């Protein structure tokens, strides 16, 4: 039942061209565009001797998580409630919580495919090194995904409509991605700004991913921050979520 629902959610997600483009392809396109700039492929002493494109491979992964977790999932779930789909499911042997789970699974699968695509292109086209601590990278990815998705669930729990979810998600998306380094990599930020970023979900997520890309384990701070978001917002969402 859960597998069928997840497959159905994936199909429905891919029938929406705009979210599909942004969550599945845009991170890879970002890597391609930035990788095409010659100076971004050269070691840069300002960011500790790394290449800009090396950093953006990790940022592209947080980008897909932010798109799916803050924008796609909250508005889909709020719309499902608005349209009475969750209520209808409550009258069948499939509980509406199963649809929530299926939606999250579909988002996670999309994020994995999108990230794998971005990293593969980065590796093949621009010689970006794949995560040298792969287990650490998977851990960082899951922690970041769970933290961000918990926030998305919380948004869908508290907004009345799909449109409202979209607005709130977009408002959160830009500052979150700023701290993840979408416009200015964290390594190039002033120390104070970096410190603030460490406590934001996508800042912590990007840091944990970067640590794993460079052979380390996610730092205790990043892991704690992400688990904190998961617990606080996951619990809040579970308490506040209305089925109708």
């Amino acid at each position, binding site marked *: 039942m859960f597998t069928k629902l997840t497959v159905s959610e994936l199909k429905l997600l891919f029938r929406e061209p705009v979210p599909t483009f942004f969550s599945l392809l845009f991170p890879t396109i970002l890597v391609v565009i930035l990788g095409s700039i010659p100076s971004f492929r050269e070691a840069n002493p300002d960011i500790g001797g790394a290449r800009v494109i090396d950093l953006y491979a990790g940022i592209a992964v947080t980008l897909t998580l932010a798109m799916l977790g803050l924008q796609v999932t909250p508005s889909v779930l709020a719309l499902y409630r608005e*349209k009475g789909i969750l209520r209808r499911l409550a*009258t069948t042997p499939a509980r509406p919580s199963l649809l929530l789970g299926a939606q999250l699974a579909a988002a996670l699968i999309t994020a994995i495919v999108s990230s794998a695509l971005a990293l593969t292109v980065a590796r093949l086209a621009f010689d970006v090194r794949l995560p040298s601590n792969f287990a650490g990278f998977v851990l960082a990815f899951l922690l970041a995904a769970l933290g961000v998705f918990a926030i998305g669930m919380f948004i869908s729990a508290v907004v009345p409509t799909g449109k409202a979810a979209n607005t709130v998600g977009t408002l959160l998306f830009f500052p979150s991605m700023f701290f993840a380094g979408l416009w200015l990599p964290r390594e190039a930020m002033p120390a104070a700004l970096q410190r603030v970023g460490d406590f934001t979900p996508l800042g912590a997520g990007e840091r944990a991913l970067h640590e794993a890309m460079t052979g380390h384990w996610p730092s205790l701070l990043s892991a704690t921050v992400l688990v904190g978001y998961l617990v606080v917002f996951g619990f809040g969402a579970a308490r506040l979520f209305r089925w*109708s």
Partner: protein
Amino acid sequence: MPVIEVKNLRKQYGETVAVRDVSFAVESGEIFGILGPNGAGKTTTAECVSGLRTADGGTITVLGRPPRDPALRRLVGVQLQESQLQDKITVREALELYSAFYPSPADWRQLAATLGLDDQLNARYGKLSGGRKQRLSIALALIGGPRIAILDELTTGLDPQARRDTWDLIESIRDTGVTIVLVTHFMEEASRLCDRVAVIDHGEVVALDSPAGLVNALSAEQRIRFRPSVPLDDPLLLAAPEVTAVLHHGPQVEVVGTGNLLQAVTSVLAAHQIIANDLRIEQANLDEAFVRLVGRD
């Protein structure tokens, strides 16, 4: 043994009492109507029976179980008012997905054919007409092969032809042994389909009977109109005990009375060799009975 038993149901939202005191029992195999004006508490009653809402007072049993018992989810099919599907899901996908929720679902292809959806299987929900959406919604309520189907405002928004087709469909479903609870504010629908009707107003049951019983109980009065072949003296008709009044409208005579009025009038006319032209019997219908029951002053 009733399949649904509701006793002294009470439900309020904050300060607003939606259902004050509702009791009824639905027998196996019948089409039971819940009738009432907007805001009377019909939908809340149906939602409590469906297990979607918890009652604040009273008891409900469905097939001998409390309404929120998970086992009922496969035994009771529900068609909710204003419940949609994802715009991009196709008819086939919705039918397949929802039939996967049940241990022994009905054959969805056959269901789609019965509901006239078989030529639209690849159409997306968002592109369907209102009538087709409604039919798909009915199909999803029946897809688990339920013993009870609760259908809320089944034909609202349908054109007259689609409405009649849907009524035929409901009768054919009942013929397969499914007990049906029909929430409606259409008198025509209730009198055509329902074996018994509970009329709810201001959160209380104000009448519970067959549609014909409701009409008879409330308006025993009948009216007969005709054009007599020769002028007629009122006392001739008033002599019959069934006749209470005789009115004249130009050449037309209108006789008001009770009981077997037609028999009384025709025997008087036959005795005097008067022919009744253009004879019409005006009988109260459920509409009038309803207005009298829930008439707001």
